């Protein structure tokens, strides 16, 4: 067991010498080893972490350590770290070693965090169950017969299984919030443009965000504080001051919270519904005002989401062609065969499905009917949210329509799999932040998460509410 809950406690223990960072790192390594069956990690930096732990211990002693000194972090294998293999969960990048480091990882390193390894994911972040990894499925630490969610399944599971302090994930349509809910941890997807995407392998450029998984709100706040902020290498990152999240969450500010039935379909389970209602009740008890709101166009979100993200993905993934760094097929007579064979062998089924869908919706003759129309829907959904956030500070909805499902349960039915993103994709369409908060378990003991959404750059509101609910649970 760890002698601390969150990083503020850890740093105190490290400073007063009652916690040895090298031993702490070794503990995580042993936890990874113990539950190898979870398959959370694609790469473990065993030697590096011990060395770094020694260096950072020294820094802590001399009082020169950064804000995240000694925080042990797992990074989704979709982000570049110079010299460390990056597979993106794909066979195509089996032997790819990035030549630069992602801005967000660099910011962590600058604050003396320790990167313990790269986590498993759905290939190129395309999936909701982590069953689409070329390197094997990830299992839910709570019950290994179940999926951990996706696409950042490895990151969520690693945090839930105490294989690291916190983890970095990415969220294009729910890939942080959904696995956070399934694994019973906190998962924040920030505002689009809040965290630099430089070094994040693009899935859908105008949707992709980088966020955090942790076992406490404090750790999410501490991590987001460091990785957020403008980066000149990412033109879509925003020059907007980063709030002092870890301080903000100490407040007990009261908010107006919106509840909507717009997104609630028959499809979701009664267990989710009861947890959702219970959480609303808790918020009321905490003194927050509950307001009924309407998001009239949310039923179109899944369709718009899959059209736009696959369109962008079809273009973003064109660079993996076997001509340069991605693995080339041996069996080609000419250039076009090289492309066809390399891409046929390199990509998995789900990635191919989305590339085909994206290529189709951008094709001449179909562009207006699909891509352009979906862009309009996106704007309308954004407007819906803008209207809502004039009335309320946050919106509460479930994170997922059901508790975690069994491994293999939905692999034969992609459409049903896509529908598991029903509550999460809207935030990415609108570019707003969302957090999934663990609120308990289903009858058979599987975690359930509830989601809070806020207006752009109001991550602080989400973290404050998350912290208040977290405190409530300890009462």
């Amino acid at each position, binding site marked *: 067991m760890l002698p601390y809950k969150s990083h503020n406690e850890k740093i105190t223990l490290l400073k007063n010498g009652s916690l040895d960072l090298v031993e702490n790192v070794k503990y995580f390594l042993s936890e990874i080893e113990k539950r190898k069956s979870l398959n959370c990690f694609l790469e473990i930096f065993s030697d590096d972490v011990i060395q770094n732990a020694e260096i950072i211990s020294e820094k802590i002693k001399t009082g020169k350590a950064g804000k995240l000194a000694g925080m042990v972090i797992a990074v989704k294998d979709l982000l570049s770290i110079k010299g460390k293999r990056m597979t993106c969960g794909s066979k195509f990048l089996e032997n790819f070693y*990035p030549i630069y480091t992602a801005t967000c990882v660099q910011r962590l390193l600058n604050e003396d965090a320790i990167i313990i390894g790269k986590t498993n994911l759905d290939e190129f972040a395309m999936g909701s169950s982590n069953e689409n990894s070329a390197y094997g499925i990830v299992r839910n630490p709570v019950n290994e017969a179940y999926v951990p969610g996706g696409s950042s399944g490895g990151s969520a599971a690693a945090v839930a299984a105490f294989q690291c302090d916190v983890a970095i994930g990415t969220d294009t349509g729910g890939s942080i919030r959904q696995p956070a809910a399934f694994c019973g941890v906190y998962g924040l997807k920030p505002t689009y443009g809040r965290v630099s995407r*430089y070094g994040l392998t693009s899935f859908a450029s105008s949707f992709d965000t980088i966020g955090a998984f942790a076992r406490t709100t404090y750790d999410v706040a501490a991590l987001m504080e460091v990785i957020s902020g403008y980066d000149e290498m990412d033109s879509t990152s925003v020059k907007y001051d980063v709030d002092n999240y870890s301080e903000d969450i100490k407040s007990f500010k009261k908010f107006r919270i919106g509840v909507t039935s717009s997104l609630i379909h028959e499809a979701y389970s009664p267990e989710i519904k009861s947890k959702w209602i219970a959480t609303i009740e808790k918020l009321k008890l905490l003194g927050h005002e509950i307001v009924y709101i309407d998001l009239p166009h949310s039923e179109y979100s899944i369709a718009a989401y899959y059209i736009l993200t696959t369109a962008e993905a079809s273009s973003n993934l064109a660079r993996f062609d076997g001509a340069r760094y991605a693995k080339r097929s041996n069996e080609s007579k000419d250039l076009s065969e090289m492309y066809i064979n390399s891409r046929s062998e390199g990509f998995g089924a789900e990635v191919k499905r989305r590339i085909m869908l994206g290529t189709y919706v951008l094709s001449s003759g179909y562009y207006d009917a699909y891509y352009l129309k979906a862009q309009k829907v996106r704007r309308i959904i954004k407007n819906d949210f803008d209207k809502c956030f004039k009335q309320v500070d946050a919106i509460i909805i479930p994170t997922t329509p059901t508790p975690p499902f069994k491994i293999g349960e939905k692999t034969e039915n992609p459409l049903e799999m896509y529908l598991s993103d029903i509550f999460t994709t809207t935030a990415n369409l609108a570019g707003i932040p969302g957090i999934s908060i663990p609120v308990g378990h289903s009858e058979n003991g599987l975690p359930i998460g509830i989601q809070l959404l806020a207006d752009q750059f109001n991550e602080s509101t989400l973290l404050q509410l998350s912290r208040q609910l977290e405190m409530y649970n300890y009462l």
Partner: protein
Amino acid sequence: MNQKYEAVIGLEVHAQLSTITKLFCGCSTSFDAQPNTNVCPICLGHPGVLPVLNKKVVEFAIKLGTALNCGVNHKSIFARKNYFYPDLPKGFQTSQYELPICGYGFMILKDDGEVEKKIGITRIHMEEDAGKSIHDQSGFTFIDVNRCGVPLLEIVSEPDLRSASDAAVYLIKLRQIVQYLDICDGNMEEGSFRCDANVSVRLKGEEKLGTKTEIKNMNSFRNVEKAINFEIERQIEILEDGGLITQQTLLWNADKNEAAPMRSKEEAHDYRYFPEPDLMPVVINKNWEAEIRKLLPELPEAKRERFIKQYNLPLYDADILTQSKAISEYFENTIQFTFDYKLVSNWIMGDVLKILNERKISISDFSIGPQSLGNLLELISTGQISGKIAKDVFMEMLLTKKEAEVIVKEKNLLQISDVTKLENIITDILQRNNSQVKQYLNGEDKVVGFFVGQIMKETKGKANPKTVNELLKQKLNSKRPN
């Protein structure tokens, strides 16, 4: 060309910009580097990289737009043009499609008959260049990524051109403008100024446009003219035979002097354009635009008019001198050292340009600088050497890189204008050539040339011709019996 028909031509020109760095990364644009050395994760298209727009390119685009009378879109967007090719690392080219940076403009041309024509400019947009594929004889293809991401401006004209020579004039003028703006070196042979042509023909008086073809791969002005003429003739021939034109892309083969269709597979592209999600719209506020407009240099036409007025040069001279910015600057620098503008103009248009053409070099590589040329011509203006001697000195300057004064001194070439000295020489020659003197006195004026020749021979060409002429006529006439 069959007089029944008229050609309709539009040009798409790609000007490679002479910025220091690439369009979306900090890599150098220099083209003589070792293959794959001017590269970084961004232009290599590695996973996770993002473009950052080079503002200089926007500035260059606005400059060109202004020079071509275009409107500047205060909000323009980049788009992705998707296609697979090994020298295109991202699998798409970042370009502009809807909402380019500059909209409709025009250029005024004069055709052979000096009739003015207004050629519409449809649009100017910013885009990145692709790399180079080098096909080896061994069957391998090598990729050089240095050129990837080098900024280009594509300038698309309206189909307002009516002949191959119009097209050439337009192209020359466009090149002149980009060179004046200092945004592109305009080198067609090296590919920094490239041109594709859309060509169709129709019966004169017909409103409807004919089916057009696109010709690519013309890497000189002469080839553009030849290729367009070839295509016009080819289309007319087909129509005359009752055939139909197939819309297609043709590649000009300069060795064979013909255009052949590209394989249809190569042109069957659906580029799936869509707005580039990794870049924000390019927003140009009025202040920035005004700043850039202020930086606009004097353009060729204005300079030509000024040369006529300020230096009293004939239109012909002003035209030639202002054709290239560098030449016009060379002229203006030279006249800092001598005052006979016309003499300077004559020498630049004649001797200097001849050497540049012979050696295929540009004025910046010419070894005689403006000051040296100015000093040489000043020796002529002040009567110290003759124009003829000056030509020899000029050649000597090229060879030895010495200044004119030094050569003139070393070789003792100063002109003899001393009347007494010349009179003695003339008297001597007249005495030795009595029969020719008689011929002159008998009215055979042409023997004057003979005497001048003799005098020049005697003085090794250094005699001041004007003085010689005057003195010679005096002496000869004095021998006439009264």
